[in-house]
C-alpha cells in the first residue's frame, strides 16, 4: 500500500492579519509551520502504515523553503517526500493548485490512497483535495472521522457530514480528507530528525509534469479573481436573559436547539 499525504506550509501564527489596502496577508515574521490540519492527515497515513504496512510519501507545493515541512514529515515518520516548486506555479488559485498537485501525483505514480487535511489555516477553502480527485478521476471521501477497514482494493470509512455520519466504501485508488482529531498527531522526533538529515527532499518542477503548458498553472491558470480580501465579520449574536427560572429556560432552549433530548 502506498499512501501520499498532501501537506502545506502556512504562517506560524493562526491569527493572521490582513492588510485591507493591499489585500495581502500581513505576516509578522517569516516563521512558518506545517498546516495543523495536515498533521491529522499525516498521522492517519502513519497509523495505516502501522496496521496495514506500506510506504508513506508526502507532497507539498510552494517556494523552495516549503521543503522544511517535508523534512518535518520525515521527523514524524514519513518515508519519502516531494516538493513541487516552480516560478510558473506562483499565484495559483485553488483550481490551478489542484491541477498542479494532480499532475505531480500522476508523475509520482502508483499511489493507492491520497490523504489530505480538512482545510488549511491560511486559505481555508477546503477544496483542494476534492478538486485533485476530480483531476485524477478517482473517488473522493471527505470529512473522514474514522477508518473502519482497508483492503488491497477498497477503503471503508466513517464520514461526519455535519448532520449524519455516513459509512462509505470506495475502491482504491482514492482520495480522502480527514477530520481534526481522527488521531492525535504525534510529535516530531529528534531521533528521526538526526536519522533523516541526509534524506533528500525530491524536487519536482514544471518540466517533470506530463502537462508542461505554463498557461495551465499559476496566475495564468487561475480563473479566480481576488476582488478584495478582508477579515470576516465576527459573529457576536447573543441574548441576555435576566429573569427568574433561568435554569428552566436554559433547559428548554437546549432542548429546542436539540442539544438535549427530553427524557421519555
Amino acid at each position, binding site marked *: 500500500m502506498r499512501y501520499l499525504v498532501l501537506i502545506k506550509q502556512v504562517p506560524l501564527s493562526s491569527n493572521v492579519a490582513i492588510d485591507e489596502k493591499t489585500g495581502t496577508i500581513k505576516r509578522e515574521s517569516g516563521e512558518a509551520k506545517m498546516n495543523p490540519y495536515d*498533521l491529522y492527515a499525516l498521522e492517519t497515513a502513519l497509523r495505516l502504515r502501522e496496521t496495514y504496512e506500506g510506504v508513506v510519501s508526502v507532497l507539498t507545493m510552494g517556494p523552495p523553503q516549503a521543503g522544511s515541512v517535508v523534512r518535518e514529515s520525515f521527523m514524524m515518520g514519513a518515508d519519502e517526500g516531494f516538493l513541487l516548486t516552480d516560478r510558473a506555479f506562483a499565484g495559483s488559485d485553488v483550481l490551478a493548485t489542484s491541477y498542479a498537485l494532480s499532475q505531480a501525483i500522476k508523475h509520482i505514480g502508483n499511489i493507492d490512497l491520497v490523504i489530505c487535511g480538512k482545510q488549511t489555516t491560511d486559505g481555508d477553502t477546503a477544496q483542494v483535495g476534492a478538486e485533485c480527485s476530480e483531476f485524477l478521476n478517482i473517488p473522493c471521501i471527505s470529512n473522514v472521522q474514522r477508518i473502519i477497514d482497508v483492503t488491497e482494493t477498497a477503503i471503508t470509512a466513517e464520514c461526519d457530514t455535519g448532520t449524519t455520519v455516513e459509512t462509505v466504501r470506495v475502491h482504491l485508488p482514492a482520495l480522502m480528507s480527514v477530520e481534526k482529531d481522527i*488521531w*492525535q*498527531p504525534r*510529535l516530531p*522526533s*529528534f531521533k528521526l530528525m538526526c536519522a533523516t538529515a541526509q534524506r533528500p527532499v525530491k524536487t519536482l518542477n514544471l518540466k517533470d509534469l506530463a502537462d508542461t503548458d505554463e498557461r495551465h498553472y499559476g496566475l495564468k491558470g487561475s480563473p479566480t479573481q481576488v476582488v478584495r480580501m478582508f477579515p470576516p465579520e465576527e459573529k457576536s449574536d447573543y441574548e441576555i436573559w435576566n429573569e427568574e427560572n433561568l435554569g428552566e429556560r436554559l433547559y428548554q432552549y437546549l432542548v429546542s436547539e436539540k442539544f438535549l433530548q427530553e427524557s421519555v
Partner: protein
Amino acid sequence: MKYHTIDEHDITRLKALISDPDRVIVREKIHEDYTHDELHSLVSSPDVLVEAITTEEVAAVVHYAAEHSIPVTPRGQGTGLVGGAVSLHGGIMLSLQKMNRILELDEKNMTLTVEPGVLLMEIGEYLSETPFFYPPDPGEKSATIGGNISTNAGGMRAVKYGVTRDYVRALQVVLPDGEVVVLGGKVAKNSSGYSLKDLIIGSEGTLGIVTKATLKLITRPAVTVSLLIPFENLDKAISAVPAILRAKQLPTAVEFMQREVVMAASTYLGRQFPDTGSDAYLLVSSDGPNRKFVDEALDEIARIALDHGAIDALIADTPERQESVWTARGTFLEAIKASTTMMEECDVVVPRDRIAEFINFSHELEKIHGLRLMSFGHAGDGNLHIYELRDDLDEAEWHKRLDAVFDAMYNKAIEIGGKVSGEHGIGYAKRPFLTDSEQSSTMALMRSIKHAFDPKDLLNPGKIV
C-alpha cells in the same frame, strides 16, 4: 475562649465601616464555598464575610477586629490546598476578591502594580498585549495574586526564573492592628534592614494582609519550545535531570510525569496525549529571543537526554503541539481529583538528585498501606506533588492509611534533606509536619515573629505556627 464572638452590634458596626452594607454577609447567608478551600476535609464557617474593595476598608475592618478580639481570615479565590483560607475560629472572613484592579504598568521600572484579588490568568492576559512578562507560573491560573504571594507560589518556570518571592518589588500591607505599611519599593536592590516584605511573602495571611503588590516584570521571551522526552521508567527519567540542568542554557521548566497520570488527564480531557507508549516522561521547555537560540539549547538537551537513556525526544514547537502537551500537564490535578472520591496531597520538596528515590519510596508505601497514590511534579526543582486517593475506603480506614502514609513520607523527606512544602504552604493541614521537621528553636523563632506582628493572634489563627 480568647476570641470575642461576633454579635449583632459588631455586625452593625462592620456594616458602617463598609461603603455598601451588602458586602457584609452574615452567617447562614454566607455561601458554602467560603467554609473550605480545596482541602475539602477541613470545613469551618466564618460568622461574617466582608468583601472589601479598598485598603481603607481592609484597615478599618482589621482595626475593629483588633479592638474587639475578633479573628480575621483573609481569603482570595480559595484555591489553596492546605486549609490556609478557612476560618478555623469563626469571626470575620475578609475576602479580597473584589480588590481586583490592575493599577499601573510602569514600563520604565518594568513593574506591574496590582490589587490582591487580580487573578494570575488576568495578569497573563493583560501582559500578553505588552512586551512584558511575569514569569511565575503556578498551575492554578484562577488563583489570586494575593494568594500566590501569601504562599510564595512556585510553578513550572521556577527552574529558570524562580518563584513568586523573586518577582515582588513592594507590598502594601495592613498589619494586624489595622495600620497600613508599605514594604520594599520600585527598587532593584534593597539592603535596608530586615526584609519584612520577604517575610510577608509566604506568611499565608498570618502576619498581615496584602492590599497592593508591585510585581517585577521581565521582557517576554520571543520563542518557547518544549521537548517531551520518553523514558522506560521514572528512575531513568529522573537520573537525566541533573545533567539536563547543567546544559549551557538553563531550561525554563523540567516536569516529570508518569503514564498513569497522563492517561488520567487524557480521560479527563477526552483527548489523546501525543505519546503514551512509555512509562515515564520529562517535559522540558526552553525559551529565548529567537528560534535558532532555542533550537540550539534543545538540541543539546535532547542529546544529553539520549545519552542518559531517553527513548527519544519529541519536539513540541508550534502553538498546537505545545498546547497538546501543556494542556494535559495543566489538568493533572483536576484529572487526579476526578479519578477518585477524595484526595489529600503531599507537596514536599527534596534535593533534585533524590526525587526518584522519594517517588519509589512512595510506590512502596502504596503497596504496604493499600492506598492508591498518583504523583507528578517539578523535576527541575525537586518539588513533588503526591496525591493520596481515598477511592471507596470508609472514613476510619481512609484516615488510618492516610496518616500512616503521611508520617512515612514526611519522615522520609526530612531524612533526605527535604522540606514539608515546596509551594502550597503549611496552612492548617501541614502544621504538625512543619513542627516535627524543624528544629525547636526555629519554630520558636517563627512563633516570636508571629507574636511580634500579631500579639493577640487574630490574623488567620491556627495556621503555620
